[in-house]
């Protein structure tokens, strides 16, 4: 029985059980996540009814080209992350099981109110998990802004329900397309609600406080997996359900563009490793939002995939560095990779892929973004995206040079002081980073598979026959 509901029900049931079976809650956690990450490979693409009532009367789960690959990536990486931090997660085993159920629910659900329930579950689980970093005041800020955001989302759904009388996403989408009234205020409320989790500019005050001090566990979890899932949800709602047009698209796109540019500028100015990545995450979210709003869903999907994988490695390694060295100030990390070359190479591949150097997966992401944008919109959006990419390359290369190079430029080898610290990072972290780095490299050499999948995924949201993509073999097809 390859029912996707089990991806939600089994972790949830094990979470409830782990309250009394305290002694074996870590084995229960591993068991649940192992089950999910195996089940994801057997799920078929279709709509699954829950409770026996056909939608729109009941709730359904949807598996299609858009979310299937994200379900696989998120579940597998979640398991990997927990296994890599097994000693640290013991007190959080129950919450992690619920978080896994919540993320799967967010990806799977086909119902707008059910989506709200899962936003609540996933975000409350995130609040609790973030208390691991002992920054209680900053988590409290996140709690306030996060709860306010989900209420705004709920208010938006209430208005849509009052106007259209349905909560099912597919049904709602059909009714909005055929309807005569544009529920602008509902769109804005839903946008504001999701923008907090997606980290768009006026709404992202919580990100800095929370991710600046994230550990090697909470960093990849919140900065990579949660961020990716929330972007997928944003795409599902704004790409697939709500039908935006005219001024609305322009004004929301401007928010995305400002987020992109401000994020890259702040990353350029950041002095600490994790600050760089959190600002870069904000920028990438802005980019994905621009692409979704412009209707370029297939490239938005590429951005999300690349962002999940690269940020996973970058937060993991940065968190470990901060834990081992005691800080993550870039200026004091000179030559840190010299005695841990394998890890350094994985880190370098990932960050070079982030800025879109040829040979890496990021190159195909960047070039397809530009092709799609140049073809679809006026020139100012792709021009600003290019500027953002330049800033990104500047700070990433500057950072890599610092982390590899001992001493100053032109200094003679004899006079250089050897770095005094040694980077003791476990084998597991190295292995994970290297494997994910290799994946970015391989999919950079053979990008066709991933790009074809993303075109299929984009087509789920909008059927568009004239998608042109850049691949290795065919060039512009």
């Amino acid at each position: 029985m390859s029912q996707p509901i089990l991806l939600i029900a089994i972790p949830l049931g094990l979470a409830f059980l782990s309250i009394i079976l305290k002694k074996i809650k870590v084995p229960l956690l591993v068991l649940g996540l192992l089950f999910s990450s195996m089940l994801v490979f057997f799920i078929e693409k279709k709509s699954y009814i829950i409770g026996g009532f056909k939608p729109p009367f009941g709730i359904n789960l949807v598996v299609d080209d858009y979310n299937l690959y994200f379900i696989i990536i998120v579940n597998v990486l979640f398991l990997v992350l927990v296994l890599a931090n097994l000693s640290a997660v013991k007190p959080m085993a129950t919450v992690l099981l619920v978080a896994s159920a919540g993320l799967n629910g967010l990806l799977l659900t086909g119902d707008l109110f059910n989506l709200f329930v899962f936003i609540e579950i996933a975000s409350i689980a995130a609040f609790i998990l973030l208390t691991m970093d002992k920054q209680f005041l900053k988590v409290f800020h996140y709690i306030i802004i996060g709860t306010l955001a989900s209420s705004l989302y709920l208010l938006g759904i209430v208005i849509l329900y009052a106007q259209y009388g349905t909560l099912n996403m597919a049904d709602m989408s059909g009714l909005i397309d055929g309807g005569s009234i544009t529920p602008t205020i509902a769109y804005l409320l839903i946008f504001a609600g999701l923008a907090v989790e997606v980290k768009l500019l006026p709404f992202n005050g919580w990100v800095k406080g929370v991710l600046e001090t994230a550990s090697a566990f909470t960093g990849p979890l919140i900065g990579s997996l949660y961020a990716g899932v929330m972007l997928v949800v944003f795409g599902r709602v704004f790409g697939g359900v709500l039908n935006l047009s005219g001024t609305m698209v322009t004004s929301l796109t401007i928010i995305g563009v400002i987020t992109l540019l401000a994020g890259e500028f702040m990353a350029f100015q950041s002095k600490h490793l994790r600050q760089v990545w959190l600002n870069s995450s904000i920028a990438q979210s802005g980019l994905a939002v621009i692409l979704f709003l412009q209707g370029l869903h297939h490239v938005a999907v590429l951005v999300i995939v690349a962002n999940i994988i690269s940020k996973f490695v970058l937060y993991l390694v940065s968190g470990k560095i901060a834990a081992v060295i005691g800080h993550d100030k870039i200026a004091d990390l000179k030559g840190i990779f010299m005695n841990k070359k394998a890890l350094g190479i994985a880190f370098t591949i990932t960050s070079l892929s982030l800025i879109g150097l040829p040979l890496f997966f990021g190159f195909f992401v960047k070039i397809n973004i530009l092709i799609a944008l140049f073809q679809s919109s006026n020139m100012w959006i792709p021009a600003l995206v290019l500027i953002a990419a330049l800033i990104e390359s500047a700070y990433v290369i500057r950072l890599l040079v610092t982390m590899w190079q001992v001493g100053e430029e032109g200094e003679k080898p004899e006079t250089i002081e050897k770095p005094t610290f040694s980077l003791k990072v476990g084998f597991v972290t190295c292995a994970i980073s290297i494997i994910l780095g290799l994946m970015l490299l391989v999919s950079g050499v053979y990008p066709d598979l991933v790009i074809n999948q993303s075109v299929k995924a984009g087509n789920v949201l909008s059927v568009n026959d004239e998608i042109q993509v850049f691949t290795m073999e065919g060039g512009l097809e």
Partner: protein
Amino acid sequence: MKRIVSILLVVVLGYFVYTSLYVDGFDMAVSDNRQTSISDAYITKSVTSENESVTYMESTDLENGSANIVTAIVTDYRSFDTLGEVTVLFLASIGVSMVLAGFTKKYQFKMKTNRILKTGARLVVGLALVLGVYMFTHGHLSPGGGFPGGSIIGASILMMYLSEENFRARMASFKWMESLAGTVYVLIGIIGLFVATYFLENFLPTGTVGALVSAGIIPIVYILIGLKVGSEVSGIIDQFLTEEVAS
């Protein structure tokens, strides 16, 4: 100044929400209004079967046997949402117990209790407990259900904490109840998936509308929710009314 700006913002937002809901013809946004058709199907219980009307104590073997329409929607038509909301409360209770972990000594109020308060509280607590249990066992028949029933149980525990200086509820047994109720809820869902076809499907006979034993899994689910909510709310109250032991 800040306050005036925020009040103005709320007023503007309220105006927009009001106009988008109550302007003339807002329900004409679509030619066939789903709101009526879906609600009608819920009321006449005719989502999967054609059904003209439902008569109290007469109609039998409907797709959903609950006499209370709210319960029918909350625990049957959209039961999956309710499982999610139960999880939200579960997480809240875990969050409280993690942040306040290590608070073991009961908080002592400045005001001393007296015999009249204690005796009165004991009388009321018994009645309140019975009311709470009544409410979630009759959730499919009368107003109320698992969430208010469980909250009433929590309130009666709170009353005991306030009136008796040395009262501590046995938290271990509440934990058991919380955990088992949640697990059984999920299990019922999975049994539905394997015995019938769908997760959380109502696989028991629904009986006569209005009878105490009717509506299939709905009363079972509501009793589980009542027990779970009751033990979670009590657990949160216990955490809030304890303090750190001074060392």
